[in-house]
């Protein structure tokens, strides 16, 4: 049995894991040496995302997790309480109303690229926009960014489908909890129009639940979108034909971002699931108690699901992908990430004149789960003014 999964995790395959993921699909449900089952084909992944016998409650830290690590009914309760201050049914246009802010921040970030001919699009654009937006939504002071950024980055680096670095993860997670806890206590006395204040005012979450939810949204709210934006520019710059089409027809950014989520997904796999009962999928019985990894990036390139899967195409009639997962844990912040990526990529394509990659492949961040470039150095001739 070919099990190239450990090779996927190896840093050497970070720049291009896709040949290995294609190989991985030869065994749709593959047992690893440590007892983990890796699932890599589209149909089987979708089946497990919707299977109530698969739990998200695989505990790796000694604490009650945020809703991402809970099952119904607790998951449903906490996610719904969080959604009250983020989207439908209670706040349907909250994210839509942020569009002008997103554009204003993007404009400012790209203005700052003028007067030089080289920039790191990760540090100078892809990172600052989502951080600014999630800080504003949650009510986290932007001045604290240097503080929580280091912790968040470290936590992402330590993410692994294997149960490693437990002590250090616990330590960093505690620091983030303490920081968010302090903010929650401040908001209790001085409420604002942010999500943390909303959670407190509802009075339906405990302090711990507010803190865990806050930490989750803070980290997930920007660590993934950075990769979506950076992977996006990288893909465009590798495909001049795509760059030209998106430049000439800005409406194409909509299918382009969906295709990015399929072709270069920021979240490559879900590594936190566990079987509650024996579950048979793809002809393999996963015994109760087994850890399960869902290889989303492999599933979205499954040739049994999508034609010509290894080609980036703006012309797919129906793009159903696993970029945001699926089922009850479907990415909470998906609409925010979509709009941010659509706006920032449109502006970059429109305003950078003659952009070129300095290094291909660029250096990558270490995580095999949240995958994206650490830096994206780009040379350009000029920055066009904003409209």
């Amino acid at each position: 049995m070919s099990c190239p999964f450990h090779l996927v995790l190896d840093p050497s395959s970070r720049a291009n894991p896709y040949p290995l993921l294609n190989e991985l699909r030869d065994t749709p449900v593959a047992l690893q040496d440590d007892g983990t089952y890796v699932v890599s084909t589209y149909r089987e992944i979708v089946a497990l995302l919707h299977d109530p016998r698969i739990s998200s409650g695989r505990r790796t830290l000694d604490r009650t997790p945020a809703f991402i690590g809970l099952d119904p009914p607790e998951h449903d309760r906490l996610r719904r309480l969080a959604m009250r201050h983020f989207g439908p049914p209670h706040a349907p246009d909250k994210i839509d109303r942020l569009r002008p802010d997103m554009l204003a921040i993007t404009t400012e970030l790209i203005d700052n690229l003028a007067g030089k001919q080289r920039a790191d699009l990760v540090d100078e654009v892809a990172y600052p926009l989502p951080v600014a937006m999630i800080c504003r939504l949650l009510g986290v002071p932007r001045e604290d960014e240097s503080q929580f950024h280091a912790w968040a980055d470290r936590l992402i680096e330590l993410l692994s489908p294997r149960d490693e670095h437990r002590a250090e993860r616990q330590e960093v997670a505690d620091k983030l909890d303490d920081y968010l806890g302090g903010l929650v206590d401040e908001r209790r006395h001085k409420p604002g129009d942010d999500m943390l204040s909303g959670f407190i005012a509802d009075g339906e979450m405990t302090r711990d639940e507010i803190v865990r939810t806050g930490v989750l949204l803070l980290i997930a709210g920007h660590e993934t979108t950075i990769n979506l934006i950076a992977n996006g520019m990288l893909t465009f710059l590798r495909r001049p034909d795509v760059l030209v089409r998106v430049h000439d027809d800005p409406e194409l950014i909509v299918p382009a971002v969906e295709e990015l989520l399929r072709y270069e997904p920021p979240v490559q796999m879900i590594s936190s699931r566990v079987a509650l009962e024996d579950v048979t999928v793809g002809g393999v019985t996963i015994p109760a108690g087994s850890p399960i990894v869902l290889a989303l990036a492999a599933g979205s390139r499954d040739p049994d699901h999508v034609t010509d899967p290894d080609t980036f195409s703006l012309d797919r009639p129906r793009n159903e992908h696993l970029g945001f997962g699926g089922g009850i844990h479907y990415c909470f912040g998906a609409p925010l990430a979509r709009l941010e990526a659509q706006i920032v990529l449109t502006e970059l394509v429109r305003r950078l004149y003659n952009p070129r990659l300095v290094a291909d492949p660029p250096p990558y961040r270490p995580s095999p789960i949240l995958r994206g470039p650490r830096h994206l150095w780009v040379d350009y001739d000029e920055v066009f003014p904003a409209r």
Partner: protein
Amino acid sequence: MSRPGTADLVRVVVDLTRCQGYGQCVFLAPEVFRMREEVLLYDLDPPAGRRDHVLRAAAACPVQAIHLDWRESRNLPETKPGGSTYEGRIVIVGGSLAGARAAGTLRREGFTGPLTVISEEEGEPYDRPPLSKQVLTGQVAPENTRLPRLREVEVEWLAGTPATGLDVAAKKVLLADGREIPFDRVLLATGTRARPWPDEAEAKLKGVHTLRSAQDAAGLREALAAGPKRVLILGAGFTGSEIASVCRELDLPVTVVERGSAPLVSALGGVIGDVAAELQRAHGVDLRCDTTVTSLEGDADGRLRKAHLSDGSTVEADVAVVALGSVRNVEWLEGSGLAAGVWGVTCDAGCRAVDINGLVLDDVFVAGDIARFPHPLYQYQFMTLEHWGNAVAQAEIAAHNMISDQAHRWPHVSVPVFWSSQFGVNIKSVGVPTFADEIAVTQGSTAGHRFVAAYGYQGRITAAVTFDQGMWLEHYQRLIEQAAPFPSENATPVRVPEKLSATAEATVVVTGHDPAERRVSLLLPGGRTS
């Protein structure tokens, strides 16, 4: 940017069979899509200025359930190698959901021959589910429910003229105006109409409505908007319950009279029916079960005044909606030699009609609400499904088979999916809930009105129902497809009412002795034979 033919118009239809309530469309186009828990309501004909929002929303749908183009079929393979070689003349009788989808599918699969659609109703084909929901509340105008981009299908539309006969031997459809439309292959998709109140004089009282067409919806909307003192609804099936829900949303007093022990009982059984009853009462509906309306009474001006009930009571109401189910539009097929009657038009799993002798006809196909087909998952029992999703799926299979040779035909074996939204809850079902002897709540609780219940027949899962838990439905669909064992814990009897066999009227007479001569004819009322 300008794509040909799409300058600024964008119409929307959401396949709520597929929708799982992710709500991405609401985030991206909140002025077009609205959501209450898992209930999705939307504007089918949004203002032109919202086009870019709608495109974003459609692209973002995780299950691609938002249709901006009714010519596309999501269930079929993207391309058909070589396309169709069938060159005959195709006629579709019925221009609603199934007929329109079949027309689109035929063209998409490469059929280039002459194609005619005969439609009784004037105007473009439209979507019916919104008629008992966002149209009645006034959020969407009845005329703004048309299916998107159907106009662009190359079809000869004969609208406003009902078909009155089918001559199978001469291969002609006869129209009410005397025209005869020749065909090489024909698809029958004439659907259903609302079952009228049996007393014709009482049915004509002002204030008495049925709901099936856009025109019906316009009339009922006007009556509800006028602020009646009380609305009386006869029948608590899905349509009646949805109308009752709208009345409560509009803060109108409403009485629902149901012959069965609870609402929805004939579709979902007594256990779920009791949940639906509680839901109605919690929303202020005056629900009277195990009761029927015996007569409607008008005033001197012929205006509805009150109703007399089987328990001897009366209900004063100025608007009544007769929601007692539907009648299949098959009368025009009398004498055609098809196995057609009130039970539907019998066909094989490939949608080919069966004649009165039980022989399959190669050139006559059936789809949608009138098609009575054998379902292998349910012991090959013949069933008719009056579901949006079945009309679409069956029309696609029928269209494909009409232009394919025997070796490339497909069976219609999709698992039925149905949805309804009422009292703020999105109710969905998969499988055939009446094909069951047991039921068990497998997730959530009925008390919280958020749950999944599985139905079992002789130890295997045959159906499931969700209340605001749509994301789990496809898991249960898979279990049904695999004939998975029914979870016996917490199981209770399902309490499905025994149905009168609709085919009881299908009495036939066999004549002849020689196998080459033996034939069947249908015994009609009064002792006539067909």
